């Protein structure tokens, strides 16, 4: 199974795999993060970043630098790299690359829909969308007056169409809480992506299944914890869990019954790969859970680079870059708000 890829992968994918590995070596290292954490002002950060790959993007910014500008420019770099790879890709790699961004597309669609329902201006909404999730007909989303029209007119042409039809009928679309809609869509997207990877076969299928399973399990745990004490019923909760992953199906059954964090911890600790996450938290504390999940994710993403000739390196690169942008945002905000002591709380080193 593994042998055949070495022969044919490089025909179509060799150039891009080399490109993405080059990008990956340009990610900030622990030494860079240490330097950044020592900065006193945002200008220092700008100076340090100009020595890294972000140099050309931050050079032209005027001096009172804002944290949001830093984040914007870094995201811009990611978008440029992604577009470069996408234009060079052939099938099935191009489909794979597009799949990587459907998550952001879902976020953008949900944002525009809520904004339209509350009668905000379309242009403003478009500016607030994530650049990786833009597609051509996104502006027409604002035209629709209710969800049925929305689906009929617009969503049918987007790649997100099957997710809408799978999970919700048109009555549900009107009443449903936006968050539930977003999570249902995301669940459908994950399952679709999983199926696609399985179809691709080989190392891609194996590594991506692992990564996607982790993602699905993480979402299940987060949904459980965040819906404790809200009006989300257990059945609704169960509907939002994906149908693959380590925790499915027995873990999901138990998670649906959980009413507080310690029960969740009990359920998850039965699965050895996730034990290390919860061991970092003391009892009753949930603040560090997200950081623990991010660390675990970064570990797995880095491991995917150990193998060659598969597409998971692209997915991993996009995720690692997003984590890096998150780190930079955190460091800049800590420096700008004079909270240097908290800087190390949430920075996840990638190497």
């Amino acid at each position, binding site marked *: 199974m593994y042998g055949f890829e070495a022969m044919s992968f490089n025909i179509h994918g060799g150039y891009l795999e080399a490109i993405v590995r080059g990008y990956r070596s340009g990610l900030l290292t622990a030494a860079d993060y240490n330097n950044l954490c020592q900065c006193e002002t945002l200008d220092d950060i700008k100076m340090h970043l100009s020595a890294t790959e972000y140099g050309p993007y931050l050079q032209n910014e005027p001096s009172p630098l804002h944290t949001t500008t830093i984040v914007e420019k870094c995201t811009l770099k990611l978008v440029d790299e992604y577009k470069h790879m996408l234009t060079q890709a052939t099938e099935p790699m191009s489909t794979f690359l597009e799949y990587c961004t459907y998550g952001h597309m879902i976020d953008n669609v949900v944002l525009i829909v809520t904004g339209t329902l509350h009668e905000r201006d379309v242009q403003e909404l478009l500016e607030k969308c994530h650049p990786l999730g833009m597609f051509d007909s996104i502006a027409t989303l604002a035209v629709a007056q209710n969800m049925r029209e929305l689906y009929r007119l617009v969503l049918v042409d987007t790649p997100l169409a099957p997710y809408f039809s799978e999970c919700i009928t048109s009555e549900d679309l009107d009443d449903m809480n936006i968050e*539930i809609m977003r999570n249902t869509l995301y669940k459908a997207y994950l399952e679709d992506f999983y199926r696609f990877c399985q179809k691709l076969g080989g190392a891609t299928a194996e590594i991506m299944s692992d990564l996607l399973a982790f993602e699905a399990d993480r979402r299940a745990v987060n949904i459980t914890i*965040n*819906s404790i004490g809200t009006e989300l019923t257990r059945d609704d909760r169960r509907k939002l869990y994906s149908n693959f992953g380590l925790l499915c199906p027995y873990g999901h059954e138990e998670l649906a019954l959980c009413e507080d964090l310690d029960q969740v911890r009990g359920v998850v600790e039965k699965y050895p790969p996730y034990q290390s996450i919860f061991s970092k938290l003391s009892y009753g504390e949930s603040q560090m859970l997200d950081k623990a999940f991010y660390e675990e994710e970064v570990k797995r993403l880095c491991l995917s680079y150990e193998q060659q000739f598969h597409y998971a390196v692209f997915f991993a690169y996009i995720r690692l870059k997003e984590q890096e942008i998150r780190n930079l945002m955190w460091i800049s905000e800590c420096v700008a708000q004079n909270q240097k002591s908290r800087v190390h709380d949430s920075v996840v080193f990638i190497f």
Partner: protein
Amino acid sequence: MSGQAQRLNVVPTVTVLGVMKARLVGATRGHALLKKKSDALTVQFRQILKKIVQTKESMGEIMKTSYFAMTEAKYVAGDNIKHVVLENVKTATLKVKSRQENIAGVKLPKFDYFTEGESKNDLTGLARGGQQIQACRSAYVKTIELLVDLASLQTSFLTLDEAIKTTNRRVNALENVVKPRIENTITYIKGELDELEREDFFRLKKIQGFKKKEIEKQMAAARKFAKEQAAGELALKKGLPLDSGFNLLGQGSQKDEDIIF
């Protein structure tokens, strides 16, 4: 300003004096009451000032914490979280209402905040970051509480300041302008009345003098007449005509040609 307060232009009569005296009593009473009011207001003022200083200090701390909670939420839930939350909002859940409080006669506005309606944002960040978002929300609710308190305190501060200035102005006016003026008026009236009295007295005395003179004159005239009467009677008794006697006396005094001496 005139160094010594002037006096009011009044007709210096007794009634007006009575009126002025009443006004002086009123002014003194008013002055004492206003001074008490001013002291009470100043006490309140100092208290509010202390509270404002405290609140502002804690405001700095709390704003810092809530901004940091916001950063944490952004870190976990993604940068877009601000837009997601904003787009989902129709009306505000935290509202402020104002009412009036009466402190030592001054109406001060006070603001209270109250929650209205359920927030639909309970499920935000369901898949990631929900905890941080709710923590951020409660941090900002605390900030709003503090802000509303600070707003009440500051408006009360300004209003009280105005009120104290006005009251002090009135106290000073009463003390330095109105009362001296009225006192001077009273003094003036009293002076005028005294002078009138003196004039009257003098006039009376003068008239008495005249009368006395008149009486003396009359008495003198009467005496003279009485004397003449007596002399006339005497002459009559002697058989002389009244006139002759008179003539006699008259001739006696004249040079008689017949008599050669």
